[in-house]
């Protein structure tokens, strides 16, 4: 059973449906990725789950209890890492951790002890007494993350925790989050980085314009495209439509078509060499055909017709 269940969550700002009937659940020991471009509704969803925004409709259930019936109980269970660096830059790393630990309900002594543990886990012990304003971007991100961990939350909400940092610092944070999953923490992870969702999350929900378009494991999402490989055909396709090719749509599903490129997946369990022969036999001057594994971007592409990186 999910530690966090979101059912039919809906939020509108005037005429804009920021979150539109979103449902999913996050289980203990699972990282659930909410993947979508900027403005897709990820932060609004997290804001409603954490009690910052009141949903217009739908329900958030934390550890079996509706959030609205006992918000304080739900908040004691969860830790939230906001997208912005919501920490006190004038205070030291240790002072920040201790303060947020107190806010989470720890006693002064417990907050001190836990701050030392978290600093060590984040490899920040040596800089613990320095003001956060002197930290690098990656170190600030780590403290921002650590401030949500003092009370050992069973549910962790991470809103794009690696935005704006270098690749090495990002890898460190992702590794740390994998370690949290191993302790049984249920983690909701929002991101617009495909690679993070693919490498980190057991299940992914793809969100765009407030709607959850698809969800599942990476394999399940790939299967939506018809298997574990895609064919990329390069040719002059400017005035050509696949609709004019006889029987094409019975054999292939079009993922994306541009003037220079056609991305398709095979329908049914066909041999890749047969598929290649079919594609090379199309009535166009084919310049190149390549095979690739479908990514989450291809899934997003198929669902929205847009590239997630756009």
């Amino acid at each position: 059973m999910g530690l966090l269940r979101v059912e039919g969550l809906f939020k509108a700002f005037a005429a804009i449906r920021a979150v539109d009937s979103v449902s999913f659940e996050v289980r203990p020991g699972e990282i659930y990725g909410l993947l979508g471009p900027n403005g897709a509704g990820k932060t609004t969803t997290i804001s409603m789950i954490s009690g910052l925004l009141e949903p217009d409709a739908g329900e958030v259930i934390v550890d079996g209890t509706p959030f609205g019936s006992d918000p304080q109980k739900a908040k004691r269970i969860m830790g939230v890492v906001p997208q912005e660096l919501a920490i006190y830059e004038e205070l030291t790393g240790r002072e920040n951790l201790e303060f947020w630990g107190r806010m989470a309900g720890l006693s002064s002594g417990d907050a001190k002890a836990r701050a030392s543990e978290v600093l060590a886990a984040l490899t920040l012990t040596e800089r613990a007494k320095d003001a956060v304003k002197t930290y690098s971007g990656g170190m600030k991100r780590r403290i921002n993350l650590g401030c949500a961990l003092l009370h050992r939350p069973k549910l962790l909400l991470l809103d794009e925790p690696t935005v704006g940092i270098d690749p090495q610092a990002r890898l460190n944070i992702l590794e740390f989050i994998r370690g949290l999953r191993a302790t049984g923490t249920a983690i909701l992870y929002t991101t617009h980085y495909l690679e993070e969702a693919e490498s980190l999350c057991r299940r992914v929900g793809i969100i765009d314009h407030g709607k959850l378009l698809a969800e599942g494991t990476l394999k399940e999402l790939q299967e939506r495209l018809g298997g574990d490989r895609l064919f990329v055909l390069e040719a002059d396709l400017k005035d050509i439509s696949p609709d004019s090719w006889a029987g094409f749509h019975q054999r292939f599903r079009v993922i994306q078509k541009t003037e220079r490129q056609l991305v398709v997946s095979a329908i049914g369990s066909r041999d890749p060499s047969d598929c290649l022969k079919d594609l090379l036999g199309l009535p166009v001057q084919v310049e190149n055909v390549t095979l690739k594994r479908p990514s989450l971007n291809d899934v997003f592409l198929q669902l929205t017709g847009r590239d997630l990186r756009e």
Partner: protein
Amino acid sequence: MKRIRAIGHNDLRLFLKNKSAYIWLFAVPLAFVYFMGFANRGPGDPYNRRPPVLVENHDPGFLGRIFLDELDTQGMWLLHPTNHETTARTIRIPTNFTSRVLGGEQSKVGFFQRDGSAEADAALIEVRLVRALIAMNSHLLEAATQTNAPATITEAQLRAVRLKPDPVSLQATFAGRKPVPSGFNFSLPGNLVMYLMMNLMIFGGASVAAERRNGVIRRLLVHPVTKFELILGKIYGLMLLGAVQILFFLAVGKFALGVNLGANLPAVTLTLLVLGWVGSSLGVLIGSLFAAEDRVTGTCVLTSLLMGALGGCWWPLEIAPPAFQTMALCLPTGWALKALHQLISFGSGFGAVLVPLAVLLGFGTAANLLAARYFRS
């Protein structure tokens, strides 16, 4: 309660880590206390004005010197003759003052004033001069009685008579209209009230606006902290900051500037703490109403300066037109100063400030409720 304390202590730590805070908390108000106290200094406390008078003592004998002491005892502010050009009033002791008096002859002490000098001050000096002459004559009479030979009276003899307590004395106090506070008795409460309000409003407003901008308030609210606990924590932190400022200025006032806080120190402190609550709540309210930090700071500075000026922090309300005195009653600064002047300048007890305290509590409650109403994440 635990979280309110933690938020307040954290805010105090943040305020005190800001080095520029010390300038506004201590240095600037202290400079203004000194400057305004010096500019508004009276030659005495409001119950015992000491208008200045220049004394030309032409007498080489000891009676001239003793007469100077007598004038000082009677409340004269004696100026050295080097101030001859600037003084408005002069007392002249003649050359043969000692010899004529000891010889049993009448000697006349002169009192002169320039045209246009303050009539009231001149009259006050004249009264005190007459009192000094009467006292001098009575001391001479007593010394002469002891020796039976007036011509042999010595300086030591006469000084010994002067030191003896008077068998009869008169105690006079003001009746009707209250005297005007002056000197540090005026400038210390005035500046403390204005800068307490200004600092708490600016620190409160700016910190709320900054924490809203960088997401700290939203982060606080995803913890098991209610909005009301958060507001009270913010106000508590500001009041701690105010308490630091109050403590500093009361200590400086008492030990460095000689302001007599008397037996009313607890009432003075209570009045200032209640005013601190008003200022803190107003700061949180303004920080909630405006988004941009510079607008918050500008509004707080303008509001506190206006409240300071109209509330009587810059000049004694007793000398302001009646309309200003009425306007001061609409402001927390006016009521705070009313209470503080009662306690510090006029020596009133706790009972005299119950009404001002009740009004300040009303201001604080209203500001607190409005801050809670408009607080946003």
